[in-house]
């Protein structure tokens, strides 16, 4: 038995390869390729294959070049402690190495986990329908805009978003709007939250969707979401609310404030800080069920099989009627509806949804509410302490905050952020004299050190 140099992940011995070639009736592997010479490639990429150990060392060396900073960063991407049980269960190969559940009879496990994830989001949003994932909050917002375009028969083409919105999120939204001939416009904010009067003035027949966030990109909790919802409703615009899975555990229920669609991040659970990798929420009212983008898992039953045909007879014949899960309403999707699909999404973030669901189950409602309450308390406490420093005022906005808040500094913000970085801390510089600081359970123990460092550089 021998194996030529090649991929370590193919089991063929040379003898097997020969036998298989003989069975096919060709002399060598090359004969199986039908690539004309002018476009054939000689295989020289210049990539040296390395051993596992070499690659682990190499990547560890590369990643060690990231500075070891204590991050007080948020603005849409959040790290909370992820319990070990999440990794250990989600990493089970039966989950990790499976794919989309095209054969539901052998995929009941993942389907049920996704059904449970959808159900958790139904509870958190109060809306009837939640899909089993989008890529991230930004792409989910883009999908919401195209949904608004489809379900609103009004001749409008404007998507209204808050003036303070993460730039990257707006850039993604613009790309989804581009193809639907929608335009993105902003409405003003008053002290960190929606300026409802200005929004009411701006609203009109040309608006297909009004978007608001709570918490906002600066961590402010919106106090007048119901008013935003009413403005949207009066002009027959879709009201889309952005939030995240932890904040939703305690903030006003989106359904109660009139949200038609909820988008945002579920990756705040289940994922560590991951350089921006996320998990998009998409939930909506029942009315839009057949316009939902992405995959939906539904409950169904095992079909009662014809008894005579059972190869073993017996127990399985009693199976009819037992609940089972399946991907459903697939006629919305690209593999069936093609250019008339509700979205082009195929591969999604299912495994991240599994992780978020396990994390939520591990916390339970008590743990989730505690985690969320800490996001409010820790932010308020840290803002207070920063406000006591001379040369800084926090929070900039006179609002309740969730995880993060803006800080006004007398000196240039960029310079202060750079000096803090030299001291081992990362914060956002969001304006000439504005910093933003985010505190979660991961860095709450380091706030003393941050305040001390900040005092030193102010």
């Amino acid at each position, binding site marked *: 038995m021998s194996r030529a140099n*090649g*991929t*370590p992940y*193919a089991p*063929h011995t040379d003898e097997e390869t020969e036998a298989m070639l003989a069975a096919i009736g060709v002399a060598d*592997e090359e004969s199986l390729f039908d690539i004309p010479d002018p*476009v*054939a*490639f000689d295989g020289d990429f210049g*990539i*040296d294959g390395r051993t*596992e150990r070499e690659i682990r060392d190499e990547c560890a060396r590369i*990643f060690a070049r*990231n500075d070891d*900073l204590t991050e007080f*960063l948020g*603005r849409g991407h959040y790290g909370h402690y992820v319990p070990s*049980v999440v990794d250990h*269960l989600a990493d089970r190969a*039966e989950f990790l*190495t*499976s*794919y989309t559940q095209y054969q*539901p*009879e052998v*995929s009941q496990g*993942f389907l049920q986990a*996704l*059904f*449970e994830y959808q159900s958790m989001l139904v*509870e*958190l949003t109060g809306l*009837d329908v*939640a899909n089993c994932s989008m890529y*991230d909050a930004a792409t989910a917002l883009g999908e919401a805009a195209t949904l608004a375009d489809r379900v609103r028969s009004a001749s409008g083409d404007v998507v209204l978003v808050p003036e303070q919105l993460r730039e990257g999120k707006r*850039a993604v939204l*613009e790309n989804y709007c581009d193809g639907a001939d929608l335009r993105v416009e902003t409405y003003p904010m008053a002290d960190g939250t929606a300026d409802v009067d200005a929004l009411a003035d701006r609203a009109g027949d040309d608006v297909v969707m009004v978007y608001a966030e709570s918490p906002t990109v600066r961590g402010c909790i919106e106090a007048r979401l119901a008013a935003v919802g009413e403005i949207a409703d009066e002009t027959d615009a879709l009201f889309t609310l952005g939030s995240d899975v932890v904040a939703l555990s*305690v903030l*006003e229920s989106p359904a109660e404030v009139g949200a038609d669609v909820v988008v945002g991040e579920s990756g705040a659970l289940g994922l560590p*800080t*991951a*350089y*921006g990798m996320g998990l998009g929420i998409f939930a909506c009212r029942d009315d839009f069920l057949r316009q939902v983008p992405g995959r939906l898992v539904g409950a169904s039953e095992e079909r009662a099989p*014809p008894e005579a*045909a059972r*190869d073993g007879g017996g*127990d*399985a014949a*009693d199976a009819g009627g*037992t609940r089972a899960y399946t991907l459903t309403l697939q006629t919305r999707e*690209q*593999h069936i509806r093609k*250019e008339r*699909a509700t979205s082009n*999404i*195929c591969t999604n973030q299912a*495994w991240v949804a*599994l992780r978020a669901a396990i994390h939520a189950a591990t916390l339970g*409602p008590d743990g989730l509410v505690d985690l969320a*309450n800490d996001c409010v308390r820790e932010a308020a406490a840290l803002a207070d302490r920063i406000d006591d420093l001379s040369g800084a005022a926090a929070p900039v906005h006179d609002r309740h905050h969730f995880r993060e808040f803006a800080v006004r500094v007398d000196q240039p913000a960029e310079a202060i952020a750079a000096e803090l970085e030299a001291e081992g801390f990362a914060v956002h510089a969001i304006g000439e004299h504005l910093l933003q600081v985010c505190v979660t359970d991961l860095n709450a123990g380091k706030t003393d050190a941050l305040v001390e460092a900040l005092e030193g550089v102010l």
Partner: protein
Amino acid sequence: MIHDQANYEREGEHVREPLLSEKGQETVDVREDSPLPDDLTREELTLPNPSEPETARHYTRLSQMNWAIDSGPYPLGSCTMKYNPKFTEDVAADPNAAIHPDRSARSAQGNLELQYRLQEVLADIGGMDAVTLQPPAGAAGELTGILVAKAYHEHHGNDRSEVVIPASAHGTNFATAATAGYDVVELPSGEDGRVDLEALEAAVGDETAALMLTNPNTVGLFERDITEIADIVHDAGGLLYYDGANLNALLGRGRPGDMGFDVMHYNVHKTFATPHGGGGPGAGPVGVVDELAPFLPSPRVRETNGGKGYERFEPEHTIGKVHGFTGNWLVLIKAYAYVARLGDEGLADAAAKAVLNANYLAERIDLDVPFGPFHHEFAATAGDRDAADVAKRMLDFGVHPPTTKWPEMVPEAMLTEPTEIEGQSSLDDLAAAFNLAYADTDEALDAAPNRTAASRIDQVGAARNPRLSWQALGEE
């Protein structure tokens, strides 16, 4: 081979693992201990509250009811279900890599270096000049590529309205073109299963922004006339888009850039063996030729100081962003590790064994394969049998069936892609499953599957009466 999947019975009754909600929920009064005023909070929250041991058992039982690559053959055509090397998980789990995307470039040199290295290897593998890692999936890569093409045309004052797509293409191609605001022109397949040059000539024109092409195509055939195809599209002022779903067949033997493609996406969860995760996350980096590089999403990463450091930069005419941050970072790390493990020889061998396996399996099955010579995948026809029923019966024999009833140019298609990871004996088992199911009685096919965690599921009822949450079940 017969395979029984996990099943539970109590007193002769088939019982399924209960929903978490059925195991017990708890309602918490949110306002009781809230630091927020009542008008900002919800009243209560009701969710399951399992203990950790219960949670562990619940998800372990669910996992036992789930087929995966590590369970056995998973030859889903066009999905490239390769083995996912375990060490790549450990590489990606490095806590030093788990930083926030808003870090300054100065403090994130490690991540930027890996991004840069991956951009470079992917460019080499595709024969492209510049790569973005931002798209979080294949379809997101398609949208990125088509938006780049659109921006390129618009930049040259050349608005075009159509994207041409072969009838046999992935559904995502059509949906992507529509999402980008293009009309779709569907190109019928030629009699030999490939692009018909005359039909292509007729389909392209002044309105053609791009032709989206999969090569080898979705029945595994290499588009031999690719040079002529590229000329026709380019002469009309259009761009040639490469759908990377089938790149595994070409590794080391052909590069899209050398064939005249201007823009392509890579499915790293297919070609570069990152886990499919039950549906995702994947990643869909996009490569382009020099002319299109200024339009790529922002930021990209480049070297500074002759390779001593790395920085982010905004391409001159960037389309902006296609993901809120940097894409599916943890997946990208795994792809880098896989490519590094294989190197030139391993990559070329992966393609060779993938093509060998498809051809060997096709030789061993009793079903006809109408189109050839195919590469890494083939579309067998179930003839007068229902392909979906044959597939259900295959589940009883310890394999996952192929993709069924697609592409439509093969009647009752069973699109099969064994990938390089199966050995001869495994392929023989797979062939046996095909042949036993294909030859079975109508009654047996109709009753299948019998040995799976669930027997045949009522799909029509699921769609007619949608119950999408445990709350909906509770209302019944």
